[in-house]
């Protein structure tokens, strides 16, 4: 972490961390504007930008029409012409209409113009399930976008990471997709250092050190994995839990260092298994650390169905619990 201007910190949850960071960004840089649906008068559906419009004006906090493609596209144009826009897609499930603007345009502005034009853009969106959100308020989208060169993607799990990474994303000269797991908004609290700081993109964080198994995760499941790992500690087993934090770029060194040490790798993510993040991590580890592995790499992931359901049993079936994660961890440690 760079430039922590004070040693004091404040306890806050993830949604508060987003809000506080956005507020400071708006205050410190005139070029920063926020645009999205209901971000102005309503202050965002999770109240993240509550009262921003009063303080910064409707010129800087823009309630857009319901038009996701142009929310991103207009933000792209703003960024090309010198502003530092932070676009919000109200729920990650609504991001699909703006897919071309993200993948075909924003990601390629610098590349196609040979560096003459750039696109310093942040797209923020709440994602993930466990909130009875069903088909259109629960999806994980990182696998759709992490494939795209020119984009960056972060998914912090803890409030101190939320702040540091959001600041870094805002400063980043390239488009960053900032994923906020909506269930962690109020569920996850932590100490957040005061003052401005950034956490570099592409750096994972060992949230729990261990020796017998490496568990790689992010988002809500990172917290469940920590809980599961703690259960195993009670049983005398030692599990290391690595919070990816950054999906693209992804921290190769941290993953490999951990796997060298424990020789076993379990990847846990909420997103569907087939073609999810875990597939890329597995391939990389198999390529680079095969002879360190004492067990096959395992992935504990969302089932390959279009969505978790609204009915509780359907949501629970889709999502993994700390107990399930503990079972998977235990089996791997004992393998």
């Amino acid at each position: 972490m760079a430039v922590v201007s004070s040693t004091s910190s404040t306890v806050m949850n993830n949604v508060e961390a987003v809000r506080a960071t956005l507020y400071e960004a708006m205050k410190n840089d005139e070029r920063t504007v926020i645009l999205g649906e209901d971000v102005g008068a309503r202050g965002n559906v999770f109240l993240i930008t509550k009262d921003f419009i009063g303080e910064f004006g409707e010129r800087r906090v823009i309630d857009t029409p319901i038009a996701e493609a142009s929310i991103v596209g207009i933000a792209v144009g703003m960024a090309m012409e010198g502003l530092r826009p932070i676009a919000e897609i109200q729920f990650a499930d609504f991001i699909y209409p703006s897919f071309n603007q993200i993948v075909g345009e924003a990601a390629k502005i610098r590349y196609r113009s040979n560096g003459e034009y750039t696109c310093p853009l942040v797209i923020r969106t709440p994602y993930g399930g466990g909130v009875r959100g069903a088909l259109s308020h629960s999806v994980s989208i990182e696998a759709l976008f992490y494939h795209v060169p020119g984009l960056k993607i972060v998914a912090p799990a803890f409030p101190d990471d939320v702040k540091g990474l959001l600041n870094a994303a805002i400063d980043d000269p390239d488009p960053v997709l900032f994923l906020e797991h909506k269930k962690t908004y109020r569920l996850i609290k932590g100490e957040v250092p005061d003052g401005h700081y950034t956490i570099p993109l592409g750096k994972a964080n060992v949230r729990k050190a261990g020796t017998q198994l490496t568990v790689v995760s992010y988002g809500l499941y990172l917290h469940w994995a920590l809980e599961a790992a703690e259960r195993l500690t009670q049983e005398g087993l030692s599990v290391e839990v690595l919070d990816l934090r950054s999906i693209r770029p992804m921290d190769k060194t941290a993953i490999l260092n951990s796997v060298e040490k424990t020789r076993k790798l379990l990847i846990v993510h909420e997103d569907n298994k087939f073609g999810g993040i875990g597939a890329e991590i597995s391939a990389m580890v198999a390529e680079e650390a095969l002879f360190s592995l004492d067990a096959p790499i395992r992935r504990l992931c969302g089932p390959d169905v279009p969505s978790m359901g609204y009915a509780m049993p359907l949501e629970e079936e889709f999502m993994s619990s700390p107990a399930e994660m503990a079972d998977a961890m235990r089996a791997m440690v004992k393998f």
Partner: protein
Amino acid sequence: MPQLGETVTEGTVAQWLKSVGDSVDKYEDFVEVSTDKVNAGVPSPVTGTIRELLVKEGETVATGTPIAVIDEVGAAATAPPAAATAPPAASIAPAAPAGPAPQAAQPAQPSPPAPSPNGSPAPAASSLSELELEGALRGASPAVRRLAREHRIDIRAIKGSGSNGRVTADDVLAAARTGAPAPSAPAAAATVPPGTRTSTYAQPIPGTTVSLSQARKIIAERMVESKHTAPHAWSMVQIDVTNVWKWRAREKDRFERETGYKLTLLPFFIRAVVESLAAFPLMNARFVPATAGGQPSIYVNDEVNIGIAIGLPANLVVPVVRGADKLSIKGLAIKGGELIDKARKNKLGVDNLAGGTFTVNNNGANGSWASAPIINGGQAGIVTMETVVKTVVVRDDDSLAIRSMMNSCLSLDHRVVDGSVASGFLAELKRRLEAMGPQGEL
């Protein structure tokens, strides 16, 4: 050891109902096991013969531990899985291979000096050959393989702490720290009783490897080259050698006295060949493939240099009678005799072997009646003398006679000559040889 209750974690072998060597049917109880909850007979999973009992009566082991080995009737057998290397196995380990099986066994030959890849008694780690090390590591994880290789540890000798007795990387490291483990566990791969069937795939067909001499290597290469370059066609003609045979018989003693060489049918044959070549010069040619930018062609030799194929014990040589068309039968006999003599004494020089334009092969000396020789590279054909057989023939007037008949076979390069030329040549050869008789001059 089966799990005989939900919360049961171990069991005791109360009584073996079968002994080693006994046969057992599928579903027939072969052992009685007791746990803290239950006493039960355990049925065999296969029909076969008890090969080994791994646990003593009264001994308690954890559920999942192998307790017996049964050779299944009709299945390929494998070595008894060492406790150390057992894959996730059933509690009873049949000999039918399951997953990453340990190395196949062979009829036991105590052979520590010549390590084989298959089922020898587990030697001490330091004397492990690469092959044995690799064999033991089949089925092990990449980390275990690497560590076992680095530390030269025989993992078959380690009691694995992983699931189902798997040897883990930590186990290998622990073993390395405490020194190379002596082959310890009683359940380690022991010698296999004789008569045990082995997997057909693991056992090579018995035989001896014969390494090639330089000469044989070259012969092999030349043969392939000739066959793969020239399209071989074949023709045969039957020659009545009764008269020439008589002639030879009349001359042979004097010839041997005068020259010291034996007079065989060969020089007569070669004489007929060179005369026939004069009539069919394309048989004395070679095909010249196109070179870069050029056209293919046929080169007709002016010289007639006849190679005589001679089979020696370890070699096949074709010394050449140069200018054979200029030699009489006697001259051919002498020259031929010289070359054969040199060949047998391994005294042929390069100049004896070079320059052949056509080859004769006296296969008949071996008793061959017909053969399809391979053309000597760079020539258009090779002709044989086959064995002489007294044969009943039908004459033109339909009367029968007993004549000495000899086949002559021709392999020809079809790029140079066609059947008509080849057959013409053979017909000419036949005519001339049949025309030879005691009235001629050698």
